[in-house]
């Protein structure tokens, strides 16, 4: 990964003014954002959109936690509670985590490989601008008669077909739009990486964020059509008299789960592989040492992606399948621990005998490694079929996937924002606020999710609006942790707004003294157009 640019070929902004002036004119106002084909603008749009959706989905989580603060029904009716759990999940997965990673890819992939922009800039605009409409449709479904989708983000048939409300059509349509957006984004990433790398940027010199996103993009293209297929089958079962998931017409409700999880499990890695890339940038920078085992990181990522296609039924052990199938999916799932372990060991080895400092991105990265590993270990426990029968559909599972998605994916996104924000704005963010954000989030997120392991093991099922009295004490603490975690994110909002208003100390092009890679060789803030002439990577 020794990427040294040929400074003679680096397009410094000042000399570009002479020959290509119109190119550097930045449009103003609303139309800039509506019509933009600039990867940095689109990246910013994606990131803001993801953040807004994170707050909206978070507000729904607050409703859930408020209802669960005490036993008994206090605030919402069970039907609305189910809508909240459903839409919370959909928004966080499709509205927050995935668009945030796409936003980071837009900002960073061209800068990291020395490309002037994404390969398909107009499609890039389109793939962002259909997203707000998808979520407007989804959110508006909450206000139709009977309310929005109430069958869980996994929309198992026949609860989502025969037994669902009429807003199901809106749900299906919005998921289609989200899927189209993701597929277009993925195509763009692949075409850009295949065709627009700077001379000398061979595949095995690509930064890990680029590698992990390339693999993620292939996963997206492979499984988003499967999701589109399954929502279409739900639509036709509900409205057009087909019987894909209805035994009375020769179908099978469990077929739904097979198709859904064939999408769903790779989807889990879609939400975590780019995080692995981000952490592999941040840990070496603040350890002032090269990433340990670059090649094994690439191979581990690829193996995880391949394995993700043969483990889907570990979400369905209780549906009743042959012993031999249960054994197969158990063993395939356990094997994923090997490449995932390699990644964690590589990060620890990178820190080993480094020269470590604890800037905010590093704090989030370290929290990621520890807490993601906690989620990974509970995942290993969940793979063991006989005990999965006890864990399945309890709060133990809720704890597991929130550890990998909140303290995993979302912490990595925050680490990435803190790491690259000075490059985007040209100013250092407010470090005091950032540290408040980190420590408040770290403590509250563990008060929120750690006790969920206990209530899950003690027997509390997930997706219930009310619970037996033995779970009351922990649920109170979980809710308090939830409110605190929600409020902590407002610190982040304040910090980002402040950073966007160009407050704070100016930073150098390298920003962090251990940072390596092409994006650190262009000025801060990154000019509107970068790498008009490709750098040469030696």
């Amino acid at each position, binding site marked *: 990964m020794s990427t040294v640019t040929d400074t003679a070929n680096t397009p410094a902004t000042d000399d570009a003014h002479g020959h290509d002036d119109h190119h550097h004119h930045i449009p103003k106002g609303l139309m800039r954002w509506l019509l933009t084909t600039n990867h940095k603008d689109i990246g910013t749009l994606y990131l803001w959109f993801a953040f807004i959706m994170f707050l909206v989905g978070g507000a729904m989580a607050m409703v859930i936690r408020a209802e669960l603060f005490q*036993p*008994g029904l206090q605030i919402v009716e*069970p039907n609305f509670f189910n809508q909240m759990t459903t839409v919370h999940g959909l928004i966080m997965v499709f509205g927050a985590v995935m668009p945030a990673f796409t936003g980071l890819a837009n900002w960073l992939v061209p800068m990291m490989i020395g490309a002037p922009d994404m390969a398909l800039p107009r499609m890039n605009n389109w793939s962002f601008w259909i997203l707000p409409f998808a979520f407007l449709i989804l959110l508006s479904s909450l206000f139709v008669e*009977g309310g929005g989708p109430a069958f869980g983000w996994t929309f*198992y048939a*026949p*609860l989502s077909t*025969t037994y669902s*409300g009429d807003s199901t059509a809106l749900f299906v349509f919005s998921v289609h739009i989200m899927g189209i957006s993701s597929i277009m984004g993925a195509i763009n990433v692949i075409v850009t990486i295949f065709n627009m790398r700077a001379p000398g940027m061979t595949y095995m010199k690509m930064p890990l964020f680029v590698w992990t996103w390339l693999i993620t993009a292939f996963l997206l293209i492979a499984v988003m059509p499967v999701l589109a297929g399954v929502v279409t089958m739900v639509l036709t079962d509900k409205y057009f008299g087909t019987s894909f998931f209805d*035994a009375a017409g020769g179908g099978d*409700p*469990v077929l739904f789960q097979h198709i859904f999880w064939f999408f769903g499990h790779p989807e889990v890695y879609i939400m975590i592989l780019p995080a692995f890339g981000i952490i592999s940038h941040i840990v070496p920078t603040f*350890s002032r*040492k*090269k*990433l*340990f*085992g*670059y090649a094994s990181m690439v191979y581990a990522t690829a193996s995880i992606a391949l394995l993700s296609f043969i483990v889907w039924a570990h979400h369905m052990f*209780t549906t*009743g399948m042959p012993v031999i199938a*249960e*054994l197969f999916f*158990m063993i395939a799932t*356990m094997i994923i*621990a*090997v490449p995932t372990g*390699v990644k964690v060991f590589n990060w*620890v080895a990178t*820190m080993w*005998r*480094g*020269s*470590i*400092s*604890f800037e905010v991105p590093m704090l989030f990265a*370290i929290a990621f490694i520890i807490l993601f*590993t906690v989620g990974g270990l509970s995942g290993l*426990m969940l793979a*063991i*079929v*006989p*005990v999965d*029968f*006890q864990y*399945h*559909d309890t709060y133990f599972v809720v704890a597991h996937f929130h550890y990998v998605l909140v303290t995993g994916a979302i912490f990595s996104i925050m680490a990435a924002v803190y790491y690259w924000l000075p490059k985007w704005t040209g100013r250092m963010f407010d470090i005091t606020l950032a540290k408040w954000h980190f420590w408040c989030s770290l403590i509250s997120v563990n008060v929120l999710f750690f006790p969920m392991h*206990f209530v899950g*093991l*003690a*027997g509390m*099922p997930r*997706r219930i*609006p*009310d*619970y*037996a*009295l*033995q779970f009351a*004490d922990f649920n109170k603490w979980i809710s308090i942790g939830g409110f605190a975690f929600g409020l902590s994110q407002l610190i982040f909002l304040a910090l980002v707004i402040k950073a966007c208003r160009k407050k704070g100390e100016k930073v150098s092009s390298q920003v962090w003294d251990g940072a390596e890679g092409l994006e650190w060789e262009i000025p801060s803030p990154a000019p509107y157009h970068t790498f008009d002439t490709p750098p040469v990577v030696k």
Partner: protein
Amino acid sequence: MLALATTASERSDLNLRPGVTDISQQVYSLHMMMFFICVVIAVIVFGLMFYSMIRHRKSKGAKPANFHDNVKVEIAWTVVPFLILIGMAVPAANTLIAMEDVSKPDLTVLVTGSQWKWHYKYMDNDVEFFSIMATQQEQIQNKFTKGENYLLEVDRPLVIPTGQKVRFLITSDDVIHSWWVPDFAVKKDANPGFINEAWTNVNEPGVYRGQCAELCGKDHGFMPIVVIAKDPADYEAWIVEQEAIARRAAEEEQRLLAMSMSMEELMATGKRVHDSVCAACHMPNGEGLPGVFPAIKGSQIALEDQEAHIDIIVYGRAGTAMQSFARQLTMSEIAAVVTYQRNAWNNNTGDMVQAKDVNAIMNGN
């Protein structure tokens, strides 16, 4: 590890419970083994990480080393986890194979989930009944103090004998449910149109509580399971008694066919049936949930066609959440609830329906 397993409290607020079957105790040991292995891995990995974070800090003047590859180390930390995984997989596979062996049962119970209750049918005896949550709405609405078994109590628990292999055939009438009793380590989905199998062999008599584990709609959280395990002799006495009760109920049903109930009787029984059975969807005030469950108050079916009203309760309506109540309610109960729904909430039709009217629709005479 095993010592810990046996000293752990029966019903912990923190941990899985060891349960009351050989299988559930094996599952518990597996869980504890997995847990300890995970703790050891975490301690080693995080220990090394924290050591590095403390000793190799820039502020302490640490100079970065230069290494970034080591094939031997990388092979080691690929192979060692692999071996640990094999160590986990072998006992897990053995337990799993034992759990899935449903052969040679002493007794079989058909478990059918529907929104939001369980139905148990003893395949070897003439006994079947519905099991519905017994917690009062007032407790859920915080008007009464919550009882000890809040949300975990039912009107008619499943009763099984101890020391015998009881096989469960599990299915559903509508959406997917999941029948879960933690103390038996049995959790199996109830899939509409398909039958799953599970089994248990309970060592100790007692009352064991569980819940539906698969999101099944509005009242998913209010669908508990209670199983009473009795000594085989007590169980035999119980099942004989139940058969007698079922026979008497059938005779009573025939007797009532010839009789007419008064309006007061019909309305009182009808209100009880409506509030305990129909109100889950159509609400106690008969207004339903707009867009989800239709209203009965002011509805065409409740105001006009009386036969259609009886028919929908007896047969349900295909393609909707309206299930058949023919098995859940007696003919006189159906007659009463139809009368109630046609006269309550300003639906003042003045209609009176008798058991024989229901019988006419059910049996065509």
